[in-house]
Each structure stands twice: as C-alpha cells, then as structure tokens.
C-alpha cells in the first residue's frame, strides 16, 4: 500500500457526529436501522454465517469422497449434506452475496444518493432472508432434506421422507427478500441518481446491479410459485406434477429452470460489475468499450431467460425444443465473451499494480473464461448428454460461481473494505490469500472436468475405484481452498482494530463512493454531489495514464 497523496478533498469532511458505524452502538440500533450501509453489514454477517455452514457440509463431503466405498457416512446423510450445501450456498450465500452486501452499501453512494428508494423495505428484505434461512436451518436440524437443491418431482413430493416442506418454505420466503431487493434497486437507480448522473455515466457496477435486479424480480416469483406447488402437492395432496393423475414432472423442471438458470446470472452479473470497477482502477485506464459493457450486461440478463432448457436435454424434453435451447445457449455466450475481451483490452497500455483486489479480479477473468467456455460444451447436445449430471457440470458451475462470483466477492471485499471500515488490511496477507485461493480452487475443480467426462455421476459417494485418484486430488485442493477462505476473516477482523486508517480514497479511484469519508457518514454526502464526468476518467482521453501515478485524472464530480 503506497501512501499516495490524495490531491482532491472529499466533499464531506467527517462530521464530528461520526459515521454510520458510530451512529448507534447498541445491537438494537443495528437491527432496526434503515440505513443501507448498516443493512449491508447485517447481510454481510448473515451470509458469512451461511457460507461457513455450507462450507462445513462440503468439508464432510470431500472427506467422504476420499474413498470410493462410501464408508464414513450413510447414504442418507450424504444426500442430505449435498442438499444442505446446495440450498444454503445458492439461496443464502451466492444470491444475496454481492448484491445485498456491496450492492446495498455502494449503490446509493455510487449514484450520489442518501439511501435506497425504500429504506424500510430494504430492512424488511433482510428479515425475510433471515426468516427463510431459519426455516432452512430448522429443516436441517430436524433431520435434513435429501432432494438436492433442485427439488425434482415426483421424488420431492411423493417419495422423499425428509423435511422438504420446511426447506421449500425457507427458500420461498427468501425469494421474496430477493424480489424486494430487486424492486428497491431498480427504483433507486431510476429515481435517485444525483444531478448529472445520466444513464451512460453510471458506473458499471451499478449497471450490473440493474441487470441483476431485473432478473431478480422477473425470475424469482416463478421459483416461489413452483415451490408453493411442491408444497401443495406434498402437503395438501393436490396433484399437479403427478404422472398418475396426468401431470408432467417435466413441467416442474421447466418452471424450476426458468428461475434457476437466470439465477446463475443473478450470481455472476454483479461479480462482473465488481471486476470491472477493480480492473479499471488498478490498470489506471478507462474501461475499454463502456457502452458495449452496458449492452452486454443487459443482453446477458435478457438472453439468460431463454436458455433454461439446456438443463433438460436428457430429461425427455422434445428434441426439437432441445435444439432451440441449444442454439440460444450458444448465443448467450457471446455477450459474456465480449466482457472478457473488454476486460483484457482495458489492461492494454495501462499502468497496472497488483494489490489484492486486482489479484482476485485477474483470477476471476481466468476462471470465468474457463467456466464460460465449458458452458459451450453443455450447450452442445451430444456432449451434454455425456456430461449432464456428472462432475463436469459440477466443475463448470463452480468455475462460474466460486471461481467467478466468490473471487469477485473477495475482490469487492478487499477493494471496498477501506471504505466500509475506514481501515487498511495487511496487503501481504491479502495477496497471499488471493494466490492461495486461486491455486486451491484450480486443484479442487479442474480434476472434476476429467472426472465428469469419464462419467462419474454427481451426487455419488460410492464410485468406481478408478475415479479415486481424481477425487483425492480434488479433496486435497479443497483443503487448500478451505485454508485460503479462513485467512481473510482473520486479517480483516484484525485490521478493524489494528489496521492503519485508510483515508477517503486509498486506491485513487474515480467513483463518487470515494468522494465521501471512510467510513461514510450517516446520509452519505453532506451535500448531494454533482456529476460532471464519465466514470473511470483515470487518464485524459487521448493520452494514457501517467506511469506510477495514483491520482485519477478526474473523479466523477470534477469538471473536465
């Protein structure tokens, strides 16, 4: 961390009344706060708890998979553990991870607003999320759920003897938390942009939240109603998908994937936004092709709704429908590719430094590129037939969700940590954790591509012995990854007490969030800022960045 001088003064010198962290010190003041920054912290705490619950489940699973005979835990326990891992990680960690923590914290700051459009709804959505989480945890404590996170009928409605209802209720409730967040974000972006913040001056993280929110409000209700129908069929005995009464289990799959494929974009779009912010800041260059980046985000969110059928190529779906979905799935790869190319091109003629957020962001690009390309294999019907429901799929979506979203989550955490807490963490440890995470991740998941094409089905704890070597590699990598995940909580919490003061703009970034104090005061800005610039004016147009300089050419509120 070079102590570069900040030439520009923040708009709002820290008032003596303190910042959002000191605005109230009781737990009650946190639990009833409608301040978006405090709600972001509430989310950060709850998703961290859920993350470690999900991680504990997978730790047992990876240990069990060291041997091919399934000797340590029972069949049912295994099924319940991977269901727990899936449900918790998808709905209580990944979906709320970046949008509800960093989105909540930064969206009003980045557009120069005092808060989100509906602050009370924002707090309510956190309580809904927690209520959903508690239902789910109840399902776990009461004995677990063994349907997989996909809740396929008729297994979930008529054959499973586990606590499907509680888990479904939990996800149902959490779904409304998602919808509330989506509504709030879109309304905020539409209505609360500060003067001069036109649509094409929005930071790309804000655009990514906009695209994400669209998916949240249009996809999540379908999941909710699908789970409601599952509850109706299982609990009230109302046949809907039951083939004995003429129902069709594939109808359930259509409804489920209508949500769950776009849900992947809920996880990855905000990650793309984060990475854009970080890359441009540490390369000291304007984002390459800003407008294309915007179109690509919106295109991914839109086309992402048309491709769900590629989860159903072997399900008994009409082969003609499969062809349509296969075609659309190839098409959705294009905007993602555009983003990757633009990130890479942003580095060109930059002045790149490699602080921890940048390492995570670069790792993201690499892992997302691999994850995205392997998506093409799944879009192609003949190859998908082989790898569907095998470890190939597991590897693919972990490259997107863990290699992509979680890397970006850590990038965001390190990038905005000084803003959120006002403190600097230890850079050496942070870099070490980033590198460890990258290698641990690849050791864990790359072997699973091979394992998948060899034909090892997912959700198997008993497997043919010739697959063992890959499982051992994967489990070894997973322990490295686990160690890497345990590091940041330690040095970050350490920094809160002993870290150096960060200053308002430690990275020399251009966004409005860096123009207020760290941590920000209660209503973000004492005077609403006026935007004069494109985002990312790290260097004058035509001329490149000044080598070695940490000072942005113009922040967003500085006139040209």
């Amino acid at each position, binding site marked *: 961390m070079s102590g570069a001088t900040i030439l520009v003064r923040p708009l709002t010198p820290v008032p003596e009344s303190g910042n959002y962290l000191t605005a109230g010190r009781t737990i009650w003041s946190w639990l009833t706060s409608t301040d978006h920054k405090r709600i972001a912290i509430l989310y950060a705490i709850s998703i961290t708890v859920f993350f470690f619950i999900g991680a504990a489940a997978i730790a047992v699973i990876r240990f069990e998979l060291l041997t091919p005979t399934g000797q340590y835990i029972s069949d049912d326990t295994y099924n319940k553990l991977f269901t727990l891992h899936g449900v918790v990680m998808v709905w209580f960690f990944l979906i709320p991870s970046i949008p509800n923590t960093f989105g909540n914290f930064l969206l009003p700051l980045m557009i120069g607003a005092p808060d989100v459009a509906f602050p009370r709804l924002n707090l309510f959505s956190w309580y809904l999320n927690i209520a959903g989480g508690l239902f789910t945890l109840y399902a776990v404590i009461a004995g677990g759920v063994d349907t997989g996170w996909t809740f396929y009928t008729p297994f979930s409605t008529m054959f499973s003897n586990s606590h499907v209802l509680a888990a479904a209720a939990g996800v149902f409730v959490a779904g409304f938390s998602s919808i509330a967040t989506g509504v709030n974000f879109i309304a905020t972006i539409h209505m609360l942009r500060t003067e001069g913040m036109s649509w094409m001056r929005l930071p790309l993280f804000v655009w990514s939240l906009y695209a994400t929110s669209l998916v949240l409000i249009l996809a999540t209700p379908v999941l909710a109603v699908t789970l409601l129908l599952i509850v109706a069929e299982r609990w009230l005995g109302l046949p809907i998908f039951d083939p004995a009464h003429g129902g069709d289990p594939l109808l359930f799959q259509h409804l489920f994937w209508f949500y769950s494929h776009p849900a992947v974009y809920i996880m990855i779009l905000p990650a793309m936004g984060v990475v854009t912010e970080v890359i441009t800041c540490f390369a000291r260059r304007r984002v390459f092709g800003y407008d294309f980046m915007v179109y690509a985000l919106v295109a991914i969110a839109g086309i992402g709704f048309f491709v769900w059928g590629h989860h159903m190529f072997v399900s008994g*779906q009409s082969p*003609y429908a499969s062809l349509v979905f296969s075609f659309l799935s190839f098409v959705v790869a294009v905007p993602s590719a555009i983003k990757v190319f633009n990130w890479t091109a942003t580095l060109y003629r930059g002045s790149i430094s490699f602080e921890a957020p940048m390492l995570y962001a670069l790792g993201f690009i690499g892992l997302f590129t691999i994850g995205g390309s392997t998506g093409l294999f799944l879009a192609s019907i003949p190859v998908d037939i082989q790898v569907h429901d095998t470890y190939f799929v597991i590897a693919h979506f972990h490259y997107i969700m863990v290699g992509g979203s979680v890397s970006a989550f850590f990038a965001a955490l390190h990038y905005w940590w000084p803003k959120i807490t006002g403190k600097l963490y230890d850079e050496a440890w942070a870099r070490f954790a980033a590198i460890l995470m990258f290698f641990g991740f690849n050791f864990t998941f790359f072997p699973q591509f091979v394992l998948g094409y060899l034909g090892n089905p997912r959700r198997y704890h008993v497997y043919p012995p010739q697959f063992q070597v890959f499982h051992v590699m994967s489990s070894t990598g997973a322990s490295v990854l686990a160690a890497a995940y345990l590091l940041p909580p330690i040095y970050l919490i350490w920094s809160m007490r002993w870290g150096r003061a960060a200053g308002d703009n430690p990275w020399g970034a251009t966004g409005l969030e860096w123009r207020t104090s760290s941590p920000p005061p209660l209503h973000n800005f004492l005077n609403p800022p006026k935007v004069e610039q494109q985002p990312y004016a790290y260097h004058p147009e035509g001329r490149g960045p000044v080598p070695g300089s940490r000072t942005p050419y113009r922040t967003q509120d500085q006139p040209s």
Partner: protein
Amino acid sequence: MTGLEATATTSARGDRFRSIWRRNLVVWLALDLLVFATLGLAYLPLGYFNIAIALTIAGVKIVLVAIWFMELRLAKPFTQLASTIGFVWLLVMFSLTFSDFMTR
C-alpha cells in the same frame, strides 16, 4: 416534478368530484358489459374459439383496468414500460415451454 399539491376552491372541488365519478363510472360500466358478454359467449358452442374469445375479452378488461383505474395513461414512460415487462416475460415463459410440449 414539482411537489406542488393542488389546493382547490370549492367549485373546483365539485368539478373534480364529478369528473372522478363520471370517468370511472364509464369504465366500470364497460367492464360489466364485457363480463356479461363473455358469460353469454361461453354458452355458444364455438369449439376452440370459446377460450380464444374469453381470453381476448379478458385482455380488453385488463387493458381498461390498467389504463383507466391504474392510471397508466398518466404514468411516466418508464412506469408504462415496467407495466408491460411482466406480460412480455410471461410470453417468453409460455412460448419456450410450449416449444417442448407441442413438439413431443
């Protein structure tokens, strides 16, 4: 955009009163008429046209409610856009799902 709220004189209030009643009453009568129309048409043996007609009338009713009762005619363009997006996405869901069921 201005936060000005109308403070009306008594006679202006009476005008408002009457215009609110008159406008909404017309819409309400039209809706009732459509209910009776769709009810009557349901008893004519028209085969597949029965459901088509019924849904078309339902569509007209929805448009009436949305434009007049829900005041979409006065809303900002992006609110009008938001009101249609649900229907557009419903169309996506239906057409792609039926691409499976109709070609099995």
